[in-house]
């Protein structure tokens, strides 16, 4: 229906085009990227420290400059003008180019690191070698493809985080949240683990060496945390190692449930998590591309909960595989462990069915029952068949396929590579088992909700459009209902873009949280009683 020109120009035709300075800024950023690409084609940069600094500075300054041009002259407020006119943010030509480039990068990173310059049993080449000096400076070791990735990831969160804060400078919730995300990425995901690597072999670790550990990254997001080699690493590293292992377990079973109860899953998904961090910063320009249909919601629920089941089975199998059978050696044996798992899952299931059944939709109930039965049957099969493979497959097969399908393809290639096509939270919404578990708790047992402000909604649709999780926020708001959805990551953008001040993320009493008050205020009170009769 619109008559403006849709062309391939990166700058977009009028009505929205880039200013001259923004074009220059884009060029500068691209230059930084080109340096990295040249390095991966083994262009020999003599002074690695210098060229790495040049590349990263060019990228960072490019993004800052671009953002300054975009936002500094404007008044604080919502900055979504022309989002659907720009090729890059409306699935146009440049969106596809960016999507393909990112996807290719992930495929190389996960499956062909040698193209980045990784050399088995030898000095690094290519772009990995470019990062050697930085890696040596931090951990004392040469870089790996993961170090390169980690560095670029952190740079992306930092520079796009600043862009984001500029864009939402009128919104203190968004600013503080972004500072938090930037901090956790830089300190916890990037610097601390590198520094921890320096301790390896040291006296304080009793000469042991710790596995690489991003402390904020908890199971099941780091599905590998309880694998045999890591447990060995932890246990061989003295008190510190043991403390870290305990922390890993506590964070899953104690810390995270408490925080989620008090604040909703946002405390993790949009304040701490690295995947969420990238989505909120670098991915912010793509948040409106998420699919809001009811169909997508159905698919989401099935896919993400299947991943939870998968990761639970896989982890159980893996832990099972390295446990012994002799109680005299170690109290935790194969059988005790499996019984423990069965008891844990049964109690969660029983609790939900007993107290929270009414808050689940019909298909969610069937799904829960179905999955519960499957897990129990699989556990049972093992028990009554004696030794053998748990869950019909070798634990190694399960682990490998999980790490390939979910860990690499889903979270990396699709989750991030397809930002410009499917939106920025595809992984968080459809794939992340951590998000599913936190979401389950958020829906059933948390103080968090998005309150709808009486009858003020004008059904404009900004909230739904800009919800990166594809939640149809408007569907609730226009009925005067609160939004209590397991997938909501509490990014606060729906509330920010609402032109009528209808939405507020807040923590309050559990009572009446979900039913809220389905009254559209301003109405005749008697009428409302009638409308609410079901």
């Amino acid at each position, binding site marked *: *229906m*619109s*008559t*403006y020109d849709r062309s391939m120009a990166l700058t977009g*035709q*009028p*009505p*929205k085009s880039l200013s001259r300075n923004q074009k220059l800024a884009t060029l500068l950023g691209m230059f930084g990227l080109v340096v990295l690409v040249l390095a991966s084609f083994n262009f020999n940069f003599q002074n690695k420290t210098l060229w790495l600094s040049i590349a990263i500075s060019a990228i960072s300054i490019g993004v800052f400059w671009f953002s300054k041009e975009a936002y500094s002259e404007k*008044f*604080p*407020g*919502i900055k*979504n*003008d*022309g*989002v*659907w*006119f*720009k090729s890059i943010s409306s699935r146009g030509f440049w969106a596809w180019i960016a999507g393909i480039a990112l996807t290719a990068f992930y495929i190389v990173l996960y499956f062909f690191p040698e193209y980045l310059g990784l050399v088995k049993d030898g000095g690094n080449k290519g772009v990995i070698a470019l990062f050697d000096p930085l890696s040596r400076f931090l951990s004392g070791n040469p870089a790996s493809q993961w170090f390169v990735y980690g560095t670029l990831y952190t740079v992306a969160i930092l520079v796009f985080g600043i862009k984001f804060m500029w864009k939402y400078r*009128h*919104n*203190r919730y968004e600013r*503080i949240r972004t500072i938090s995300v930037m901090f956790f990425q830089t300190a916890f995901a990037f610097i601390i683990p590198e520094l921890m690597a320096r301790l390896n072999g040291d006296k304080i670790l009793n000469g042991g060496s710790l596995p690489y550990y991003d402390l904020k990254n908890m199971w099941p997001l780091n599905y590998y945390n309880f694998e045999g080699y890591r447990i060995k690493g932890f246990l061989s590293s003295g008190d510190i190692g043991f403390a870290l292992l305990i922390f890993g377990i506590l964070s899953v079973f104690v810390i995270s449930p408490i925080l989620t109860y008090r604040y909703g899953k946002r405390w993790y998904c949009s304040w701490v998590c690295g995947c969420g961090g990238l989505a909120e910063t670098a991915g912010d320009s793509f948040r409106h591309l998420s699919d809001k*249909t*009811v169909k997508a919601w159905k698919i989401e629920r099935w896919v993400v909960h299947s991943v939870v089941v998968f990761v639970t089975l896989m982890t159980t199998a893996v832990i099972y595989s390295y446990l012994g059978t002799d109680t005299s050696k170690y109290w935790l044996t194969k059988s005790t462990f499996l019984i423990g798992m069965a008891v844990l899952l049964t109690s969660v299931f029983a609790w939900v069915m007993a107290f929270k059944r009414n808050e689940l939709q019909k298909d969610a109930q069937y799904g829960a029952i179905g999955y519960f039965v499957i897990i129990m049957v699989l556990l049972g099969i093992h028990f009554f068949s004696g030794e053998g493979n748990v869950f019909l497959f070798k634990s190694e097969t399960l682990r490998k396929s999980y790490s390939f399908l979910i860990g690499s393809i889903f979270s990396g290639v699709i989750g991030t590579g397809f930002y410009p096509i499917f939106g920025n939270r595809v992984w968080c919404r459809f794939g992340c088992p951590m998000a599913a578990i936190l979401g389950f708790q958020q829906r059933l047992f948390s103080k968090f909700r998005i309150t709808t*402000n*009486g*009858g*003020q909604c*004008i*059904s*404009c*649709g*900004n909230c*739904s*459009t800009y919800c990166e999780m594809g939640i149809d926020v*408007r*569907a609730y708001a226009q009925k005067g209902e609160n939004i209590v959805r397991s997938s909501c990551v509490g990014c*606060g953008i729906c*509330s*920010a873009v609402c*032109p*009528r*001040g209808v939405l*507020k*993320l807040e923590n*309050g*009493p559990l*009572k*009446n949280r979900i039913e809220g*008050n389905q009254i*559209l*205020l*301003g*109405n*005749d*009170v*008697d*009428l409302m009683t*009638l409308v609410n009769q079901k």
Partner: protein
Amino acid sequence: METIVIIGNGIAGVTAARHIRKLSNNRIIIVSAESDYFFSRTALMYVYMGHMQFKHIQPYEDWFWDQNNIELVNGYVTNVDTDQKQLLVDGARSLDYDKLIIATGSKPNKFGWKGQDLHGVQGLYSKQDLELLEVNAPNKDKCKRAVIVGGGLIGIELAEMLRSRDIPVTFLVRESSFWNGVLPEGESQMINEHILEHHIDLRLSTNLEEIIADENGRASAVKTDKGDTISCNLVGLTAGVTPNVKFLEGSKIELGKGVKVNHFLETNVKDVYAIGDCAEQHEPIGNRRPVEAVWYTGRMMGETIAQTICGNRMEYKPGHWFNSAKFLDIEYQTYGWVFGSKGRQSYESHFHWRHPKEKICVTVAFHKDTQQFLGINTFGIRMRHELFDQWLTNEKSIDFVMEHLVDANFDPELYLQYEKEILAKYNTDFSKSLKLKKKSNKRIFQLNI
């Protein structure tokens, strides 16, 4: 089972249909000439600004109507025969009804200006207007300047839209200050400033004299009553709206400005009802105007009429007045009544606070003698509807409201709050020494009280 025909698929008609469906298995037919599916008129601006695509402003997915068995007819009703209980769609197809709901909304005012029907002159109301705007003002090269006539809510939205594409805008406002028929002085003043800082050429106390055509019959300039001639490629007419009821002339349904209805939303003809923008009350309700052209009232009338249609005759009794809008970057909310200079009773006193730097302000209206809280306007601060609704019902005093202001704050978490400053000013203005109550979840979420 009866056949209910609804003319108009706006918020009023669609709400009526949804609620009738909830309450009954009547056959429901919605006729509209504007679009196949219901969309949110209030969000038209965001489509032009590129925040959303048109499909995003449709609140229900396309399968919704089928699934709920609501029949949609795309056509224009040209004739209503209340004796035969029959409509004529597009002059040809006839539709029989048992009950008829008229929900045809409004159309932009045109006051007989010279040149008002030229090419390049348009209002902003319908989907077609939006499409026309894409033709008339696609970008700043094709539209070198736009002149907007009429300083109301739609006018300022149109200005914001055009500015989003960097099109220079001149804004002719009849009043001496923006929207001061509704807003008190201080607030209206603040919005004037905000309009100017957005580089909109605001001309107060200025009327349109005539629109001048070029040789092709397109608008090329406007003349104001101040004697200025402003050349432009687009003239936006946003001087209010009137009910869209012309097609009913010649029918037996009584018309005034709109379709005349009683408090039960019934017209003079049996089984014919009118709701939304096009309904005109014989007797205004409270402080409300006889024709209420706002989203919320359309919705409430839709809910009310559904009850009546389904056998529970119900009076339209809206609760406390509320409304909201956004002036460029400034959000505005109001609860209860705060009058500008027009229509203010002698007993209505105001307390006003404005932030020293930011564009944030609050005006509270109260009864001079009884100290009863009457209403609040807030700019740049969001407020909690539920609490104000309750305070108005319970006829709280202004002192009570000022003390509990923290509870009512609805800004996002971590925002700076200004209740302290507001109360301090209140204390000084009225020589009081009230203390701010601490925020209480118990009061906010109304537990055990």
